């Protein structure tokens, strides 16, 4: 793969059932491109957690994935409430998700820590009441 590819997705914030569909699509495309299984898994899990976060906290958003031969970059942008305390949000087990989300199997306070765990770089840009952009990189 000589040049970079870009994939764009709209993440529907009103539909928890379809959350993760973009990550599934990215996983399929990366497989077609022949990336190593471990890389594909790290990228898709990190993006999946991010997608779930956008649906749970920010009524959806947009996801852009840039695929280059030596690096995959995932940019997740929403116009949600923002993150008041990033250090707190990064702690495993800390969650502001409502109980109905916990009943669906998420909201354990593992989303952001998992995203960091599976990527080589993660940057969070957030402004209260404006939105959050999470940029993650996985190097090949």
């Amino acid at each position, binding site marked *: 793969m000589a040049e970079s590819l870009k994939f764009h997705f709209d993440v529907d914030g009103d539909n928890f059932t379809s*959350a*993760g569909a973009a990550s599934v699509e990215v996983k399929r495309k990366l497989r077609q491109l022949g990336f190593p299984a471990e890389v594909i898994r790290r990228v898709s899990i990190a993006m999946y957690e991010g997608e779930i976060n956008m649906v749970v906290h920010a009524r959806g958003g947009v996801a852009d994935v840039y695929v280059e031969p030596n690096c995959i970059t995932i940019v997740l942008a929403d116009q949600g409430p923002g993150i008041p305390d990033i250090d707190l949000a990064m702690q495993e087990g800390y969650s502001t998700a409502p109980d109905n989300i916990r009943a669906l199997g998420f909201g354990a306070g593992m989303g952001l820590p998992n995203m960091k765990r599976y990527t080589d770089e993660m940057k969070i840009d957030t402004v209260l009441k404006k939105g959050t952009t999470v940029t993650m990189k996985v190097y090949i």
Partner: protein
Amino acid sequence: MKIREIATLLDAEVLCGEQMLEEEVQNACGSDMMSDVLAYVKDQGVLVTGLVNSQVIRTAMMMDMHCVVFVRNKRPSPEMVELAKENHIALLASESRMYEACGKLYQHGLGSEGC
């Protein structure tokens, strides 16, 4: 352990993935919290869960899991079964409770490395 043995041990109904019953799986993890499942990468796992929604199947897909066992007689929706079929994931349903199901599988050699 073969997926067929899991079905036998747990007296589980095979909801889809009959063609995968002879596949070997090395380890399993039991949880109703999908984020906890996502916290540990492991090859060829089995997910034992009492949670029923489409994110269970997506989580299994993300983790490259081959089999999901629903405990406490939980039944997935037709849409979930379809999603599992498309992605080559066997679905089993058992009346066992989580503790009992995990205990039986562990006792018969299905480990938990990484889970």
